[in-house]
């Protein structure tokens, strides 16, 4: 048993990949066998993710090299202290993201078991879903730049194929094409950045490069390339035109996980800014660039969301604006940590707010997209003008939608409030105008979700939705898990911040610890 425990990071990626490889063969043997196989693989993967995260949170960063004969030989004794193999460095920040990916991954697979029953091409769908989950796990856990590029490509291709899954008379294919083209372009820019760093420091491991970094002009070009590539992928404003299309046209379970996949790119952006270019870049300028991106994303996301008439497109624009909150939080954190007048605690509070908002957003946005999926599954349309009076027959979905929309608007008992409060407090101390903008955007979010809630659930029962039934059981369980977590994190935010978010924020800031974990220790 301890063999499995010591090889957990390797199994973390091997299990979903093995599941994806065998799914086409099993699906020839019948639908029920495939469904049980998918459930087994997803539960094993999520369990593995949570186990790795809990071990990292107890005993510090976990370093795992692929292809060595023993755990202690991460750095070969005769290589003069340079790691030559691919190394997974899982520190509390990536453990935090692993928890998000495993929870949301488990819920959407459970949800898609029943939402895909009537559709064709299910074995392709589940193979791509498992590959997408493995890609996101790899992006989060890896400590090697080129390995991150490979997993970025896996999740982009799997995501693009799944966005175009329903084809919908070519419209979904158009959204998939936009997503695939943009992700490939981002991947290529990322690769040029890796080439520039490799030319100077002859290493692909983040810790070694961070250790040898002297910020020459080439490194600044490489930083700009990394920044644009990852900002493209996480749906921030200047390149956000793919987000509404892909989120609206993809099956709802996939949209919920695409949110997590773009948050993995956001995590990679913070990893590049905090660890790879740890003490080198000027935190004030980069902090302000991130803040401007965040404020733009917040504002453009909400203003574009108000006039939408397609439910999922409206929620997609809200996802863009919520990404703005995370960028604002971490940007203020980066800028405040370096400024001498403000105390360190303000910067750490902003960073904790930004990171905590990543988890909260993944949970309540996933919940909202799943409720929109239930409505699409039962009523066959996403157009707000045609929907109405669903509250009478779909009680549970209405409750879940209410929980999700109150959480996204930052209303106290739910988790959105906890992280937004952290961001408001620290941003107000740093620069009051930003805090005011953040609050205004939050109010607009509440306004647009009240409108959506009213037009979908309130009003008389429409004749064509007379016999609409409640969602099937697996969907309700999936949404139930997410809703419980949203409420739980809202009621006990302090414990969650101390246990999960604080170690993640301090691990992100402490790049010396990251470098010594890979080079010094292990």
């Amino acid at each position: 048993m301890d063999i499995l425990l010591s090889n957990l990071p390797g199994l973390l990626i091997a299990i979903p990949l093995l599941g994806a490889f065998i799914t086409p063969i099993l699906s020839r043997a019948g639908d029920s066998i495939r469904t049980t196989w998918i459930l087994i693989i997803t539960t094993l993967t999520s369990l593995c993710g949570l186990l790795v995260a809990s071990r990292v949170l107890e005993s510090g960063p976990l370093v795992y090299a692929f292809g060595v004969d023993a755990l202690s030989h991460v750095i070969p004794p005769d290589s003069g202290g340079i790691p030559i193999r691919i190394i997974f460095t899982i520190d509390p920040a990536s453990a935090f993201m692993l928890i998000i990916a495993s929870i949301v991954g488990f819920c959407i697979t459970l949800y898609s078991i029943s939402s895909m029953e009537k559709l064709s091409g299910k074995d392709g769908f589940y193979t791509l879903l498992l590959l997408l989950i493995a890609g996101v796990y790899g992006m989060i856990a890896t400590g090697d730049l080129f390995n991150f590029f490979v997993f970025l490509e896996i999740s982009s291709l799997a995501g693009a194929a799944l966005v175009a899954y329903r084809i919908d008379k070519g419209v979904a294919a158009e959204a998939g094409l936009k997503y695939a083209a943009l992700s490939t372009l981002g991947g290529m820019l990322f690769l040029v950045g890796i080439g520039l760093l490799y030319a100077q420091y002859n290493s692909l491991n983040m810790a070694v490069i961070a250790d040898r970094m002297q910020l020459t002009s080439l490194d600044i070009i490489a930083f700009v390339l990394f920044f644009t590539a990852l900002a493209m992928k996480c749906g921030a404003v200047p390149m956000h035109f793919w987000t509404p299309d892909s989120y609206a046209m993809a099956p709802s379970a996939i949209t919920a996980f695409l949110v997590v996949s773009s948050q993995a790119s956001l995590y990679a952006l913070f990893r590049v800014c905090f660890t790879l270019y740890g003490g080198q870049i000027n935190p004030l300028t980069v902090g302000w660039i991130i803040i401007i991106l965040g404020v733009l994303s917040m504002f453009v996301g909400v203003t574009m969301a108000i006039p939408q008439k397609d439910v999922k497109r409206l929620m997609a624009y809200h996802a863009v604006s919520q990404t703005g909150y995370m960028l604002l939080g971490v940007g203020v954190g980066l800028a405040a940590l370096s400024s001498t007048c403000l105390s360190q605690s303000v910067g750490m509070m902003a960073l904790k707010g930004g990171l905590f908002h990543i988890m909260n957003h993944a949970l309540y946005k996933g919940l909202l997209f799943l409720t929109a999926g239930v409505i699409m599954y039962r009523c066959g349309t996403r157009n707000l003008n045609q929907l109405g009076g669903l509250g009478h027959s779909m009680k549970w979905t209405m409750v879940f939608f209410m929980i999700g929309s109150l959480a996204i608007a930052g209303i106290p008992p739910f988790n959105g409030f906890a992280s937004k409060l952290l961001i408001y407090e620290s941003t107000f101390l740093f620069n009051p105008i930003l805090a005011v903008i953040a609050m205004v955007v939050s109010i607009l979010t509440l306004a647009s979700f009240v409108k959506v809630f009213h037009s979908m659930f309130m009003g008389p029962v429409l004749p064509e939705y007379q016999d609409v039934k409640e969602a099937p059981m697996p969907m309700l369980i999936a949404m139930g898990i997410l809703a419980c977590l949203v409420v739980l994190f809202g009621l006990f935010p302090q414990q969650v911040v101390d246990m999960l978010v604080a170690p993640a924020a301090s691990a992100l800031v402490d790049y010396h610890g990251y470098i010594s974990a890979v080079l010094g220790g292990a």
Partner: protein
Amino acid sequence: MMRSKAVWFTLVVLAGGLFFAAVSLPFGNPAMSDMDDYFIVHGQEQTGANNIVTSIVFDFRGFDTLGEACVLFTAVSGVAVLFRHRKKGEDYEYE
């Protein structure tokens, strides 16, 4: 008109960055090469392969190749999903 000015601006900025990188990178004598020399010296001994590139692809960085085989497998399943025979009425009429 605004769009093409922004497009030209990004093109010019990227061109400047790339040409500056092309000029300042020393071609032919890389700045550091300790990891590669380790591969060349110890490649045969640790992996037993004469072709050092293959020993890197399948042993020293074998995990990348697993990821890459998955990329190809993703593309194949993606193409299979796009060209599948769909039942009638599966398409949602996007208005």
